[in-house]
């Protein structure tokens, strides 16, 4: 195998073409796709995303309409049924569970992605700045993170939801407020090891402004770790949101999310309507699994330490 590749390169050189190098990202991609669990996770994620985006066009019913034919006897006739268009059955109010699951998937994925984005942008910049400047500024900045971390943020978030009213925006703000803390720590740790490298020294020596050094030279080198951690952060954001919704303090009807659907299903379980908890739970679990596997795969692919 090595011989064949070697001959290929030799041929290219003989023909006068410049040897084509492989970028670290290409290497990482090869390593990632060699990991079966991670690839499968990626496929699942793509399928779930397609379900969230296009499921609406497959649904026969809207997520708000009540099927009056089934309202009184959901437990007997409300189960999954291809003929009347309720692919996942109906909930206890006779609303189509397929349409509601599609809608809940959208909300849950959005919360996860927004939380991860906030953490990537804010956390990375904060951590990189603290690590690069160092000294007393670093001390104050990281102590602030420590203080914020020791606050039971879920209680504060619930407090905020009650005080300022429940809305999707408030949920995003609340989740964004806490999600960047871990990322800031990780980014700082990485920055500390990067900032003594020669290329940063060269940038300092040639008089590049600190902000430019952080953005142009440090942040790109943090990206590998940041991406891995962001992937692992999405599921925990989804869990947070589901937690809030499970308590009935998250998104409001007719909007829903996985947590709210699981809660609804759990409260009806004793009547034997297991599809009501089963379908949302299924999507919740496979998505979290997929994110964890993709995150692990990315770590193996991007973290040069473990090679």
């Amino acid at each position, binding site marked *: 195998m090595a011989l064949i590749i070697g001959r290929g390169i030799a041929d290219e050189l003989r023909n006068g073409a410049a040897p084509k190098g492989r970028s670290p990202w290409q290497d990482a991609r090869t390593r990632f796709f060699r990991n079966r669990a991670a690839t499968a996770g990626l496929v699942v994620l793509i399928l779930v995303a397609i379900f969230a985006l296009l499921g609406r066009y497959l649904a026969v019913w809207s997520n708000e309409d009540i099927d009056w034919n089934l309202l009184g006897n959901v437990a007997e006739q409300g189960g999954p049924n291809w003929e009347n268009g309720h692919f996942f059955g109906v909930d206890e109010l006779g609303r189509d569970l397929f349409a509601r699951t599609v809608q809940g998937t959208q909300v849950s994925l959005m919360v996860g992605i927004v939380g991860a984005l906030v953490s990537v942008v804010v956390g990375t910049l904060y951590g990189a700045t603290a690590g690069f400047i160092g000294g007393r500024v670093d001390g104050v900045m990281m*102590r602030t993170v420590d*203080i914020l*971390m*020791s*606050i*039971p943020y*879920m*209680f*504060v978030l*619930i*407090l*905020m*939801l*009650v*005080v*300022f009213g429940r809305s999707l925006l408030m949920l995003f703000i609340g989740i964004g407020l806490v999600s960047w803390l871990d990322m800031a720590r990780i980014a700082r740790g990485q920055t500390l090891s990067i900032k003594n490298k020669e290329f940063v020294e060269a940038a300092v020596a040639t008089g590049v402004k600190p902000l430019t050094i952080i953005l142009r030279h440090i942040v790109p080198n943090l990206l590998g770790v940041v991406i891995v951690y962001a992937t692992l952060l999405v*599921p925990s954001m989804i*869990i947070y949101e*589901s*937690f809030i919704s*499970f*308590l*009935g*303090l998250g998104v409001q009807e007719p909007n829903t999310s996985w*947590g709210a659907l*699981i*809660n609804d*299903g*759990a409260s009806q*379980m*004793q009547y034997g309507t*297991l599809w009501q*908890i089963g379908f949302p*739970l299924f999507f*919740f*679990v496979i998505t*979290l*699994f997929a994110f*964890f596997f993709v995150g692990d795969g990315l770590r193996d692919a991007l973290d040069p330490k473990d090679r």
Partner: protein
Amino acid sequence: MSSFILRRLIIAIPVLLILIVATFLLMYAAPGGPFTSERPLPPEVMANIEAKYGLNQPLYVQIWKYVVGIVTQFDFGPSYIYKDQDVNDIIAQGFPVTLTYGFWSFVVAVVVGVSLGVTAAIRHNTWLDYLAVGVSVGAQVLPNFVMAPILVLIFTLWLGWLPGGGWQGGQWQFIIMPVIALSTSFMASIARITRSSMLEVLNANFIRTARAKGLPEHTVIWRHALKPTMLPVISYLGPAFVGMITGSVVIDIYFSTGGIGQFFVNSALNRDYGVMMGVTILTGALTVLFNLLVDVLYAWIDPRIRY
């Protein structure tokens, strides 16, 4: 060591003050006081009520009195909804319950998690390892609000072995399901951390030395490997504690155990600001205290750590 504890305590005080003031301001900013209702009260009556609760005083006086009340008399003020109880009564009622199942959850998570992780590491790459990894990956996607309905479905609805909720003064059959539901995902994380930490430690030079001396394997594991293995586990205990306190909200709601979380959510829904503030501050204080304990434990296990 004692100066370290003292310094950490000195840091803890401003943290708690910030938490109290921030919570207070958040409540103050809330639109609509606790006594606004559909039928507005006559202004004279309103003024009387506000005078009784001290709401007519300037903001800084209110905050000052609140802080002084907590510090000197451990008095969290009145509940605005339950006329015959103040916040202390509610805390005294709910806290022992939360503490009971919280304690057992913590014990289960640590004991099961650490033994699972250690077993997996010792039997690295055998079926036992794969089983332990499988269990911990599976448990990771089962946060408490997912575990709770699944447990009830299996043990209450199908098998009929355990009661589906209630507390009854804390008899064992009422504790089992809350403990399992609360501890599962933390147990998984602890198992994962222990495994990778133990694998690293087992490759260290001092372990090779211990084996070369001809020490029996169990002495190597128990006397030499376990202590350094526990370091990352211990630093995870802080976040785990916060997670369990938060999780108790779900447990209280789902199993009607009557712990502190139930009062918190009820007060959130009723806008009972007194209770919400009290519970938030109490959990914040507990978290700070627990983090201090963890840091001390860390320094005790690893004497190289100096603060």
